[in-house]
């Protein structure tokens, strides 16, 4: 839904593209579509850009540093930020105006230094029921698939879906595999999966359609810690292959 009162799909892509999400939410896109006035085509997977993501992080950071009165929640994603607000205190038009001010000066915002996090994973077997399948579909051995998954340094694009679920990208091209046609009713906590060019770890047991390659004994969602999560937006992640014995050891430590 576009605004009727203001120029939408704004001229400057640097300024983002604003859409009404609901009567109490606005979504800002920093995607290539923001360049094309009035483009209606669905954004595609390959439109995830590091530049777009960095702008999401900057706006998120600025809104955390300088909270806007009436804003209640923020939902960052690959190239967009959904902003939920108190509709009794703020109108879309007003928030739009304030956000344009934020966006115009967000280039100066210092982003936190990304951390480098290693996550141990026991691949295959009952922990990774889809490993062989994924390998086969690309004509790879399971060992090679593991090597590919564990040799990439991923970026944490955002946490979303469920508490502490980090969306990581991007998976090596030889491994890119679509979601399962029928999602599993329950995926065990710690499961490491891929979906398209994304990879991630299920922090808690939920239903899910990602293809499971392995499992980590490390807790991803840490509600009692101040950060609440092992990973934060912008962090760099590497998976490290471990044996079943090491898994058991880490699980008990």
């Amino acid at each position, binding site marked *: *839904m*576009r605004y009727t009162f203001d120029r939408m799909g704004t001229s400057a892509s640097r300024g983002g593209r604003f*859409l*009404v*999400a*609901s*009567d*109490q*939410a606005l*979504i800002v*896109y920093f995607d290539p579509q923001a360049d094309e006035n009035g483009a*209606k085509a*669905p*954004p*595609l*997977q390959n*439109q*995830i850009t590091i530049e777009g993501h960095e702008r999401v992080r900057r706006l*998120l950071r600025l809104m*955390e540093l300088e909270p806007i009165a009436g804003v*209640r*929640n*923020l*939902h*960052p*994603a*690959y*190239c*967009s*930020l*959904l902003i*939920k607000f108190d*509709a*009794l205190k703020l*109108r*879309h038009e007003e928030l739009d105006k304030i956000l344009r001010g934020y966006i115009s000066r967000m280039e100066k915002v210092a982003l936190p230094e990304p951390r480098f996090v290693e996550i141990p994973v026991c691949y295959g077997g009952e922990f990774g029921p889809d490993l062989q399948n994924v390998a086969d579909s690309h004509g790879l051995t399971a060992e090679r698939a593991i090597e590919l998954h564990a040799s990439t340094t991923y970026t944490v694009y*955002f*946490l*979303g*879906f*469920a*508490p*502490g*679920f980090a*969306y990581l990208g991007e998976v090596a091209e030889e491994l890119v595999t679509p979601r399962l046609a029928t999602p599993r009713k329950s995926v065990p906590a710690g499961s490491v999966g891929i979906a398209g060019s994304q990879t991630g770890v299920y922090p*808690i047991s*939920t239903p899910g359609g990602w293809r499971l390659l392995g499992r980590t004994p490390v807790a991803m*969602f840490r*509600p009692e810690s101040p950060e*609440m*999560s092992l990973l934060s*937006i912008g962090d760099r992640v590497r998976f490290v292959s471990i044996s079943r014995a090491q898994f058991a050891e880490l699980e008990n430590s």
Partner: protein
Amino acid sequence: MSLIEVRAPGLLTTVQDLGREGFGPMGVSPSGAADPVALRIGNRLVGNAEGAAGLEMTLLGGTFVFPERAVVALTGANFGATVDNGSIEMWSSLEVQPGQTLRMGPTRAGARCYLCVKGGIDVKLFLGSASTHLLSGLGGFEGRSLRKGDVLRIRAANGGFRTFRKTKMAGRALEKLSPRRVLRVTAGPQSEWFTEEVQKVFYGNTFRVAEESNRMGLRLEGAAISTPSGGEMISEGVSLGAVQITASGLPIILFVEQQTTGGYPKIANVISADLSSLGQLRPRDEIRFERVELDTARMLLLEQEKLLASKELIVE
């Protein structure tokens, strides 16, 4: 200290307040009462702050014993409540004597009944809220729905309740706030992806609430809505009440324990004033969508809030 002993938990009974906002960047959705209007009124009736924690019962209520005197109110769906086998009034405060048993049965209309107690349910707050988040097993009472044998604490009420004065909700307000089956929506962020013919199917048909519906989302059955380009897009933030169209063409309305991001296009979004109505929908209920403009949605929310804040809402 006042307690509530759970003799029977009912089908799905959880501690809820108005939820925890602000943790979207961690992937944590607010949770909170599925029918916040009913919870707020229940709290008003017993003299609590609107957002005090109460019990949310689903489809089938529980049986609770109060070892001490307590002031309670039941709001939302009518579960045929009795105190020591004598039927009691909904939407009204009531004094329960030491040792008395409050018993609820199956719903007569609506999906959720709220039990508010003067002082509020006392649980350890998680991220500033008493709400149970069932998916993550956090918040509320041990992060889960109540079981037989659980004992809940009631917070000490300000000023006690030595002078119990019965309060009840005004009939006219109750009528105005009654749950709707025609849900008003604004256009969703991807509404333009759906052709005019598809929009006609969406707005012209009734949908049935599916059995698998829960606090995360209401799944609907009915006419399939054709989705553009295979129906998948890159994940983006999703709002409460968003009507997303899955690859199978069936709509899901994102609810209080919603995922915070998702990759399905949203054709519409339930307006804030009608979100409470979602909390009273039962499996197999039939609903319809009615498109309204943003200004209308705002006006309806303002009207609802004005009514909830008015002195005429509660009468003695």
